Structures are given as C-alpha cells and as structure tokens.
C-alpha cells in the first residue's frame, strides 16, 4: 500500500525517487560520492514568468502559486527544492502586518516586479545600550512598531522587567488601552493569515514530496552582522559603527549569534528538516577589509554555524557576490557538515580551497541565465561539471542565486538538461 503524505499518496516509485534525491544531497554534505550530480531549484517569481502570469498573482493567489510551484518542480525534476510557496505567496500576510521593510508587487512596485527590501536605519546608534540590556523589551516597544504597523500600539506596553507583585497586577492596565487592544486585534488577524499561508506551504511541500521531490531546506537564518546591518542599523549605519561604536557592535553581534541560533534551531526542529538556508549579504571581498571581516563578521557567524552544527543541523550559507579572498577564513568549519553556496566566487577556486571541507552549490551566472542562449548555459554547466564535479567536488548544481525571475524557460531547461547530460 502506498504511503500517504498529508492527503497525497506517494507511490513506491515516487518514494524511491524521493529517497534517491535526498540521499544525493546528504551524500554531498557528508563529502561522499552520490550516484550523480544533484541539482537544486531556488527561485522567487520565475514560476510566474514561466506560466505567463504577473508576480502579483503569485503574491496573492495561494492556489495558483501552489500549482505553478508544483508544475516547475515536476517539469524540471530538481533533487532539492526551495520553499517556493513561502518565498512568493506573501501578499495577504504583508498587507495584514502592514509590513514596512518591503515594497512588493501591488504595494510600491509594479505588478510585474519582485519585492524589494528598503535599507533604512531601524535602530539608531544611541540605542545599542538599550538593545544590549534588554533585546526583547527593545523589540516590543521600539523595533516592532517601526517595522510593522500592526505593532503600532506596542509602545504603550509596560516595561516588563521590574513588574512584580501589585506592580504586575496593575501593570496589565496597558493592555486595556485602545491602541494596545487594536494592535492585538490586528496581530491576531495577521497571525491567522500567517497560519493560512504556512498551511499552504505545508500542503505544497507534501504534494511535491508525494511526487518524489524533497525540500532542500526548510528553516532559514541570518549571519549576525547581516542581521544588524540589514534589519537594524542599515548598511551604511553599520559601516560607520565599525569605527564609531565598534565595541558595542561586537557585543550585539556576539549576543545575536546566540538568539539567532535559538530561533533557527527551534524553527528547524519544528519543520523536521536539517538544512538551514542562510543568505549572506555583507561578506564579499569588496565590502570590508580582511581585518574587519576576521574581527567583526566571521567570529559571530562561525559561532552561529557551530551552534547549528552542534544541534545536528546543516548550515547552507549563500555567499553572495565574490568571496574568493574569504575562502581561507571561511574554511574553518568541521568537514562534512555544511553546504556552501557561492554566487560570483569562482567555483573552481572554491572547490580547490574547500573541496575537502564542504559541499558546494551553484553557480550558473544570473546574467547568462537571464540574457544568454541555451547553448551558452549548457557550456557553463559543462564547465562546472568538468572542473568541479568530475574532479571530486561535491557540487549541487543551481543558478548563482537560483533562477532569476526573468529567465527564459529554454535556459532553465538547458541548465537542468545539461546537469543530467554531463553530471550523470
């Protein structure tokens, strides 16, 4: 009798295919040789391009998104799949949160454009002490109201540490204030929408699993420096902090490594999936000096990765841009525990530096995928197979950061076909 995954029946053949695909990914992680080079699929709005619908439809129509994200998986048969539905069908939730850090199709950008993050200062430099002393209090009263409208009333919440006895009893008066009450009503509505969106993700993930396709990751995480630079101080704010507030920045990064690890471990365990996707924004060679990288960026990130590894998770950082000069530093992880996904770093150089330490993922150029021809994509895959995979590199083939939204279907087909043709 066939197994059931949620409401979906998984045939014996689909189960065997699922096990083989997941086995290839895990073999790469362990630095063992799988039967063939695995492929992965990550994208955000490309399923809309492929199907000829607007990005906004993907953002707002759960059923359509699930179907299109199932179709691309079934058509191109990757060995590991990103959480495609969670990455695209965000519109109703963002609306209900009144989320301030993004512009998205139908909300600040055109219907056929992807969502974009707004790099701003969401915490001022003189708030480091407050954040360090009581991160949760800072979140509740300052940070959350700044990043999402549903939390607008939270600045009226009581100061929790210190509440005790009758102070605690009467401290709850704040919850009766109209602004706080209104906030909670909106948060419940947003929470319900998040549950709906997540249930759609689970439904789609069950359906692709039943068809034989595993997710390559479930939980996602972030490097401590990027957490502060992207979501609190802003990119340029943090650059200034490297000079003006270096000690406080270091203290925050150290602390953040621990609470980010706790959050990530909890999420990964809830999802029952060991691989953690970690997009890396501020590690590139051209951004900060080697000295700054080794002093500020790498230690808290390594600490985070080690906490994840100790929890039997598999960190999968996506090293954006060119990180060639960072390779000797980021090699300092135990062998067979991580997948390093490189964007513009030369994959051959990465293999030569790290091939005995980590599995690799990537990295067909986005400009080639978006604007090149299928035979050029084929040649790019062959280059990676000849110079990395056939030389013993445990490569999971994918685009440099997945499939760019604008990619012609013929180029996507060329990438996956070439992986089969050359990679076994």
């Amino acid at each position, binding site marked *: 009798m066939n197994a059931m995954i949620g409401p979906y029946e998984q045939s014996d053949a689909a189960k065997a295919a699922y096990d083989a695909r997941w086995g290839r990914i895990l073999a790469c992680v362990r630095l063992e040789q799988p039967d063939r080079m695995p492929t992965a699929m990550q994208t955000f709005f490309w399923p809309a391009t492929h199907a000829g619908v607007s990005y906004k439809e993907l953002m707002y129509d759960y059923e359509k998104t699930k179907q299109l994200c199932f179709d691309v998986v079934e058509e191109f048969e990757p060995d590991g799949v990103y959480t495609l539905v969670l990455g695209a069908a965000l519109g109703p939730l963002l609306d209900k949160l009144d989320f301030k850090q993004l*512009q998205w199709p139908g909300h600040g950008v055109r219907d056929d*454009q992807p969502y*974009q993050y707004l790099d701003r200062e969401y915490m001022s430099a003189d708030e480091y002490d407050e954040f360090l002393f009581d991160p949760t209090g800072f979140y509740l009263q300052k940070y959350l109201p700044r990043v999402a409208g549903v939390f607008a009333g939270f600045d009226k919440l009581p100061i929790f540490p210190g509440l005790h006895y009758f102070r605690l009893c009467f401290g709850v008066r704040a919850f009766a204030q109209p602004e706080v009450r209104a906030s909670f009503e909106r948060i419940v509505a947003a929470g319900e929408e998040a549950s709906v969106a997540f249930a759609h993700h689970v439904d789609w993930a069950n359906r692709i699993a039943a068809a034989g396709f595993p997710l390559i990751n479930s939980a996602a995480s972030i490097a401590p420096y990027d957490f502060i630079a992207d979501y609190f101080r802003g990119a340029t704010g943090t*650059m200034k902090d490297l000079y003006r507030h270096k000690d406080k920045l270091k203290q925050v990064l150290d602390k953040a490594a621990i609470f980010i690890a706790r959050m990530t471990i909890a999420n990964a365990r809830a999802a029952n999936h060991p691989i953690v996707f970690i997009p890396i924004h501020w590690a590139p060679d051209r951004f*900060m*000096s080697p000295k*700054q990288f080794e002093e500020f960026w790498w230690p808290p990130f390594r600490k985070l990765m080690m906490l994840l590894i100790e929890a039997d998770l598999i960190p999968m950082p996506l090293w954006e841009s060119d990180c060639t000069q960072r390779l000797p530093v980021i090699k300092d992880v135990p062998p067979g525990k991580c997948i390093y996904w490189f964007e513009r770093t030369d994959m051959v150089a990465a293999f030569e530096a790290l091939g005995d330490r980590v599995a690799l993922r990537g990295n067909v150029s986005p*400009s080639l995928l978006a604007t090149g021809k299928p035979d050029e994509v084929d040649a790019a895959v062959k280059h990676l197979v000849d110079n990395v995979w056939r030389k013993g590199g445990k490569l999971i083939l994918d685009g440099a950061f997945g499939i760019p*939204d604008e990619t012609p279907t013929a180029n996507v087909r060329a990438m996956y076909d070439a992986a089969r043709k050359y990679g076994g």
Partner: protein
Amino acid sequence: MCEMNDNERQLVDWLADMQEDDALALAKRMLAEGADPARVLDLCRAAMEIVGKRFEAGEYFLPELVMAGEMLDAVGRLAKPLIRSETGGPKKLGKVLIGSVHGDLHDIGKNIVSFMLDINGFDVKDIGVDAPAQRFIDEIDAFKPDVVGLSGFLTLAFDSMKETIAAFERAGLRGQFKTMIGGGQIDETVRAYTGADAFGINAVEAVALCRNWLGVAA
C-alpha cells in the same frame, strides 16, 4: 596643493587615517583660530584623494569611503558658513549623471560610485533610484553630462537598462555622452545585452572609465 604647515598636514593625515574625532576637533580649532575656511576644504579634498587612492589600492573598503564622506560633510558644515566669497573650488574634470534604473530601489553601490567620482574631481549629479528613461532624458537635457551611469542591483535592471539606453537612441542622444552600467549582477554579458558602452564591477572601475573617456591621466 601648496606647502602645508604642521596643523594642515596633521588634519590631512587624520582625515585620511579615519581618525574622525581628532580630525574634526582639529578642523574646528583651526577655523576658530582664523584659518582660511576655503583652505580647510582644500585640505579635505587632499585627504579624500588619499582615501580614494587607498581604496583603489585595496587598502580601504566601503566602510572607509562612508566614513570619509561623513568627515567631509562634517568639516564642510563647519567651514562653508565661514567662506565670504565662493571660489568655486578646483575645475571639474567632467560631468557624470548617475541613477538607479526604473524598477530598482537599491542605491548603496550607486552612492559609493557617486562619492568616488566626486572626490576624484568629477561634477556628479545623482538622480536617485527607480528613475524611468524619460527622467534620465530630462536630466541629460538639463545637465549635459559627459557620462551617464546606470545602476541596478536586481536582475530586472538588465531590461530596464536596455530600455533606457534604447530610449537614449530614440531621442537622438546616444552620441552625446558615454554610457556605463554597474551593479551586483552586471558583467560583459549584460553590457552586450543592454548596448552600454562599458560596465564596471566597482567604484574604482567607474572612475577609471570616466577618466579614460575624458582623457584624464590616472
């Protein structure tokens, strides 16, 4: 720059070495003691030249450019109100119009390129982010640039750049300036796709392109 006295040399060194507190205190003291504010701004320019050279040499990175910009602004705020007559500063090497193409809201890289061009002696007009082709054309008509820089971080910028350059062609503007593109995903493949004259992968390359086009020795 003509001969410097000890204070002047110290100010240039502290600015170039990222000693922000010391540099700003010294600039303030020099101005309070009657130093010529135009001369103090010249010293800043000399320091920025050193910063630019260290960036080109790979000794400095983005945080140092950001800090240099902060210090330049701070000294400017102290000195500029004290200047009686505008001397206009040194002659500019050429005009560069720069902006992020339509659909793209990113500006960190563009801002760094603008700053590097500025401290290297170019007259830079930055028209911001998400700029449609017509906005570029209107600004070109008014500013008469020698070089137009199109910036974009996302892959959607490939088509926006191509459309913008095609709009320059249709408006009969193409021969009047050089067009360079830059941003996270830009490479030769994208340059060929968009029809730009050149691309750069960082601010140093952008400065080199402009110098080359305008016949300025590096």
